[in-house]
């Protein structure tokens, strides 16, 4: 009896699998909601992976002129902070925690959101706003920073993402 090995096992060890394209959705408007997607997008480009970033719902704050430098850590309803709910709601708490986190990020050479977004656009990544959210919040192209490639529909997003991986944050 002869057995044949499946291709995946028989493939030579040096034929390493690689990711060619990622499409990242940023849907949250808190500091801890925005950064992971930005880091993933920038990291993809650093590895030579094609990247698109799709900003939807409150995630659009990261590309909205008036809001992108006002994004804060959520101190209420955020169990990860291990802080009593009443304490998280104390006036100024969100600003304070945001300040501490930004300070640490600067030490680690992680750029503030406006600079990071510009940096990622400069890497050649596509930067898109979600049409449904734009309509819902009564926004227009003028409300966004100049680096935004386009406002697109969900269908157009899927077209663009075809053949790659989609990451939702």
């Amino acid at each position, binding site marked *: 009896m002869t057995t044949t090995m499946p291709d995946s096992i028989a493939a030579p060890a040096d034929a390493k699998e690689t990711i060619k394209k990622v499409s990242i959705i940023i849907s949250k408007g808190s500091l801890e909601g925005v950064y992971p997607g930005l*880091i993933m997008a*920038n*990291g993809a*480009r*650093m*590895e*030579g992976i094609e990247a698109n970033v799709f900003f939807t719902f409150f995630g659009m704050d990261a590309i909205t002129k008036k809001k992108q430098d006002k994004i804060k850590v959520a101190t209420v309803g955020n169990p990860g902070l291990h802080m009593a709910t009443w304490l998280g709601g104390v006036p100024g708490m969100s600003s304070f925690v945001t300040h501490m986190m930004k300070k640490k990020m600067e030490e*680690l*050479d*992680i*750029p503030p959101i406006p600079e990071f977004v510009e*940096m990622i656009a*400069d*890497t*050649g990544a596509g930067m898109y706003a979600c049409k449904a959210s734009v309509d819902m919040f009564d926004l227009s192209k003028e409300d966004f920073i100049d680096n935004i490639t386009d406002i697109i529909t969900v269908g157009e997003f899927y077209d663009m993402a075809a053949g790659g991986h989609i990451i939702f944050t």
Partner: protein
Amino acid sequence: MTATIAGVAVEVDNEGFLQKPEQWTKEIAAEIARENGVADLTDRHWQVVEYMRNQYLETGNAPSIRSLGKESGVPIKELYQLFPKGPAKLAAKIGGIPKPRGCI
């Protein structure tokens, strides 16, 4: 492991990054560049590669892409035109230093 690049036996990791920066020569740089899709190392390429290498030799760490864009004299947009497959990684490889491990 050992590899022969531009006729010289050098210590590399499994992705081809030199493990001993002192074994590096400009000929090695040119050959690594060619193998990684950069046919000709222009003055602008060299500016990035040398900045990368010098920073590593001075501090023991490769610079982040952010400081590369700010301090090498070559802005981010151009970095990606020069090194489409990833500027920090490729400039480190060409510059004969270990693979940068930063996330930014």
